[in-house]
């Protein structure tokens, strides 16, 4: 009200003050945004530039390529991924690519499996009430959620023994199953909120039209919940792609993944920062790309379920 009346009786002083205030506000907002963007992006910038440095540049803390230092391919050459080494045979690159492929296969499969199992369970839990023995819906939900709480250390040795007996050690399937278990609670939790936000009337209408429970789930509900599913999938991907502990424990030659290689870049002889940076950069690149391409789904997916 006051604003509206003020607009009619504009006097220049107030107008100026108002504008000044508006500009200060804008400046503050953009200042804060840029500040945090720097905080978020600088480490990534640092990693990427470091992979093009040589030792002297690292020791001098040089920051800006071509200004402070001349970029070199040293770090990438150790991976066999620089322009001059890319066509040579390189056992290092073979190793890197094998692990990279394993990481891709394992994280995608595990996230996919978790998305399927998780969204089914989440839909069931949001629509029907169950009773497994003494467990009701809320107990079942907590049972799933509690898997998120389990400290991996508690399960390390048991899994080693179990997998040995099942002949699943050092197999991709074994790791996929384990990672699925690890991210399933997150998927269930996100998807349950998703489904709760979708009005039941939609399905009831669909069923009146002759669709079965499963039919309406697949044809009506799932497409609406897709952004949420993508969000859950991406979060699973992040967690499985970066998992280190079980990978170090349960894999050796066939199912080995990238994080173990990153961690082993350190040894008794100091650190070759350029190699470390190149490998770290290569290891985070796929997720960064996914983050850039699919970012809108993450927020949209979360938004449907939030605040309900």
């Amino acid at each position, binding site marked *: 009200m006051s604003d509206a009346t003020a607009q009619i009786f504009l006097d220049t002083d107030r107008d100026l003050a108002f504008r000044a205030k508006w500009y200060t506000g804008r400046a503050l907002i953009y200042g804060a945004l840029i500040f945090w963007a720097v905080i978020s992006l600088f480490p990534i910038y640092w990693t990427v530039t470091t992979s093009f440095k*040589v*030792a*002297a540049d*690292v*020791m001098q803390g040089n920051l800006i390529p071509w200004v402070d230092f001349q970029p*070199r391919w*040293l770090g990438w050459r*150790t991976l*066999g991924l620089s322009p*001059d*080494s890319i066509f*040579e*045979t*390189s*056992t*290092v690159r073979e*190793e890197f690519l094998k692990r990279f492929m394993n990481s891709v296969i394992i994280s995608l499969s595990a996230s996919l499996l978790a998305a399927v199992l998780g969204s089914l369970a989440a839909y069931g839990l949001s629509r029907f009430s169950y009773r497994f023995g003494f467990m009701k819906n809320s107990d079942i939900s907590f049972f799933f959620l509690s898997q998120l709480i389990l400290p991996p250390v508690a399960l390390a*040795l048991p899994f*080693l*023994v179990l997998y*040995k007996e099942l002949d699943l*050690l*050092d197999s991709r399937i074994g790791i996929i199953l384990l990672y699925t278990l690890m991210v399933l609670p997150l998927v269930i939790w996100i998807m349950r909120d998703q489904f709760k936000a979708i009005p039941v009337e939609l399905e009831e209408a669909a069923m009146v039209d002759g669709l079965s429970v499963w039919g309406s789930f697949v044809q009506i509900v799932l497409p609406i919940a897709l952004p949420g599913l993508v969000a859950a999938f991406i979060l699973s991907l992040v967690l499985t792609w970066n998992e280190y502990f079980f990978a*170090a*424990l349960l894999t*050796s*030659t066939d199912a*080995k993944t990238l994080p*173990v*290689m990153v*961690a*082993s*870049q*350190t*040894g*008794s*002889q*100091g*650190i*070759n920062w350029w*190699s*470390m940076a190149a490998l770290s950069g290569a290891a985070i690149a796929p997720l960064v790309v996914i983050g850039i391409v699919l970012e809108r789904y993450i927020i949209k997916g979360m938004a449907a379920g939030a605040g309900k």
Partner: protein
Amino acid sequence: MKTEVFDRLMAAQVNRRTMLKGAAGAGAIATATAAGLGGITRSASAQGNIRPEMLRIPGVGVGSPTDRDWQKVGALTLDATKKNVASGEFAGVELTFLGLNNQNLHNFLFRGFLKPWEAYTGAKINWIDLAQADYNARLQQSIATSTVDFDIIEMGAPFEGDVLGKGLASEMPAWARDQIDMDDYVDYLKAPVGTWGGKTYRVSIDGDCHNFNYRTDYFENEEFAAAWKAEGNEGPWEVPKTWQKVQAVTKFLKGKKFGRFDANGYLDPLKGWGGFGFYFLGSRATAYAKHPDDKDWLFDADTMKPRINNPAWVRAIQDVLDVLDAQPADQINADPGTTGFQQFLAGTGSMLSWWGDIGSNAKTSDSSVVGDDVAFSILPGSDDVYNAKTGKWDTLASGPNYAPNMAYIGWGIYVMARVDSDAKKKKAAWSAAAHVGGKDISLWTAAYPSGFQPYRSSHFDIPEWVGAGYDGDFISNYLASQLDSYNHPNAAIEPRIPGIFQYYSVAEDELAKIYAGKYSSAQEGADRIAAAWDKITDQIGRKGQIELYKASQGA
């Protein structure tokens, strides 16, 4: 050896690719070295003089060795294998090799070395790469849950108790022993190291010891010398030969400036390093604790009673505490990697105990600014040494007591007993191990970045190093400090008993608390370590530990 030197030189040198352009196949190696050896072919070198040629791959100053160079070295040194193995003899054999995965070291080399071996013998090798931090855990888990899934393992001698002591390794056949010329090993790597119950199991590929690295420019500095005298210190201003003097110098340097920077004395790593940090307290303690008349210094072999809380060790801990305030800022978070590579080589501090890597980096690494000002010797001694039998401090007639710390006793290649049932596989595994640990190949690993140090008497031939492009004086001083330690009669060799790194790991945790001032005295902290060690011993089985300790001493 360190990669940086080659990287730096590489940047300065002709583009390697141009040099190697047109070079195809093994025959081109010699031409590519551009050292006037164009005429020498592999068959000629088989007559016995492959060593100079090998040392020119890729040549000091032609860039970091790559996969291609490792393969060349592997091909060049294959003659020893050819004497014992026919071409294609191991066709169809698959072996699994477990080793460390370090930047361009360890498994990276083995892969290249063994590629020509695979081509010649027809065997195939699968690789298990482990991070150093996961190594111990992974090995123990494999043993305890009987999931040993490898045939050949790269392993340090401290784990021999875990593996050899449990009968998991395969005994070395006589032909392999001949192929690698075991008599060439430096003294301390000969039996009982690598043996168990009189049988030999290990192909050594590395020798380890801590030596003393110091800055000559500090000790030639006139101002320091004058101030040293003015402050009424004993003796001349010179490189410390004893820990007593190391302490005095470190305290003296506190608060002084060296050029523009703060002067620092001896660098103590105060943060653990997955068990490896304990070796650095060990280096301070051996001169106090290792009596020439007594083999034991860490435990009593008869009872496994820890000596960590005896006056000798407590004195070493107290020494660290005494110079805490003379250390650079943030030292509490400095692990040995930091003190070695980010401090000493970068010009911080004037004295340091470390493995040979510091020496091979000092002059050649880009991260090193200390270049010409570093020299080496064996670890300092002590004016008096603690006699655990009498409980008294002895002063030896021969002067200060020296006891170099043979920390980790080096890497070796072992073959697991699971190949024993298959004669062909066994021979293949040993042939691979012998190839990697061959006499000639080891000279190359000692001279180039590999993660391994010299460990054979034949590695101490200075002209060979100079021929490869090293500076004569520097390499003489460096090699002498190593050789003096290796052949020292009073060397402190750690017990090769099961779980030895558990002892180190728990000690690191307690030491961190001692250094952070959580205990009232060094003695109290040391007592805690001793109690924890006793607990570990009881857990693993005291009787068994005593037996294995004695077995490892060759008794």
